[in-house]
């Protein structure tokens, strides 16, 4: 049950700060540009990212748990930061199911949270997530898995724009058989939705959706919307003109000189 290979290969470091926090067995929240990792005793106990549905969406969308059941558990055990344990102890979610779902959500959010960024990370010591302990994961395992996932995506189809851009259909699935799970993803590709939006609507892990989308892109069925195409720029920014208004600049200069 222990990962024996931790010491054999030099552990890849995605975040030197995370590495240091693991070494000092820190407890708290590491806030990065695209998500937050929660540590307890230097291990990752939870992760969240706006790029991927939270465990509440995953559990309630598929029918594993009613929405009221989730909020009842949060109300009853949220203050004690033991919501995960409480879901199991109160018989709402089986222990194995919670572990599978929570681990999936943790690695999924960590993948996005550890995405390259120029914004410096912040760490708040002592902060704990209200979901509470479920199945802590070593920092090394999370970093290794995140790197492996990046490579997996690039092996399937090396176009990272698929992960973030609005997507459009480019082919007829009649030409190539698409398995049911991937077909549901394809049905949500409409020229406007991004991978994250599709994951939220389906209540699926965003990384799983990325894998499906890259496979669909490799099959020629999906492509990132070209810039300038309808739906591509949902926030219309004013055009930046190449030639400045010379007359206006002259008038400004004259006015400044006249002061």
């Amino acid at each position, binding site marked *: *049950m222990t990962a024996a*290979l931790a010491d054999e290969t030099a552990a890849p470091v995605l975040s030197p700060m995370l590495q240091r926090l693991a070494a000092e067995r820190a407890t708290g929240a590491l806030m990065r540009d695209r998500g937050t990792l929660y540590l307890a005793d230097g291990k990752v106990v939870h992760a969240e990212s706006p790029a991927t549905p939270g465990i509440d969406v995953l559990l309630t969308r598929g029918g594993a748990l009613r929405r009221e059941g989730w909020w009842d558990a949060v109300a009853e055990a949220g203050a004690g930061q033991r919501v995960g344990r409480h879901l199991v102890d109160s018989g709402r979610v089986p222990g194995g199911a919670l572990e*599978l779902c929570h681990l999936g959500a943790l690695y999924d959010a960590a993948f996005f949270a550890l995405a390259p960024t120029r914004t410096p990370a912040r760490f708040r010591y002592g902060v704990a997530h209200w979901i509470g302990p479920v199945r802590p994961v070593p920092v090394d395992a999370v970093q290794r898995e995140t790197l492996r996932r990046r490579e997996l995506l690039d092996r399937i189809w090396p176009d990272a724009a698929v992960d973030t851009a609005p997507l459009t259909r480019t082919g007829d699935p009649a030409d190539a058989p698409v398995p049911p799970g991937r077909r549901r993803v394809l049905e949500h590709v409409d020229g406007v939705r991004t991978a994250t939006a599709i994951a939220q609507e389906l209540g699926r892990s965003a990384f799983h959706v990325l894998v499906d989308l890259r496979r669909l892109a490799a099959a020629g069925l999906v492509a990132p919307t070209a810039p300038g195409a309808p739906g591509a720029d949902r926030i219309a920014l004013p055009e930046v003109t190449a030639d400045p208004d010379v007359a206006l600049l002259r008038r400004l200069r004259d006015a400044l000189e006249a002061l």
Partner: protein
Amino acid sequence: MPGIDECLLDVMRLPGARGAAVVDWTSGLALGTIGDSPNGDHEATAAETAEVARMAAEQPAFAAGSPDAPGGTGSAPPVEDVIVTTSAGYHILRFVETDFDSSVFLHLWLDRAEGNLALARIRIGEIAERLVLA
């Protein structure tokens, strides 16, 4: 109230069991492991077996006759298990049906001389069900 570790311990009680893992076949991530792995690296083994499980789960030939073909919300592929026989052992990949979106299977590596494939196949099916049942 069994969790991942309890189920893996159960799997290892089978005669001839050499190693086992709970794996996500979309990503190739090992969610839990126990015992030995055929190439000495549980994570690499998980990535390899995940590819086999995915191929089986996604082939239209194996989807024929499944009750919930298109439109279903269940995450279970119509395939129940995949069995690979090698000169030294058996590998059973047993899909786990969950009522949230997932792509999880149990991998059992069984010694060919000591293991009982028929027994192991029945037991791992029961354990896969118990993993996600209260």
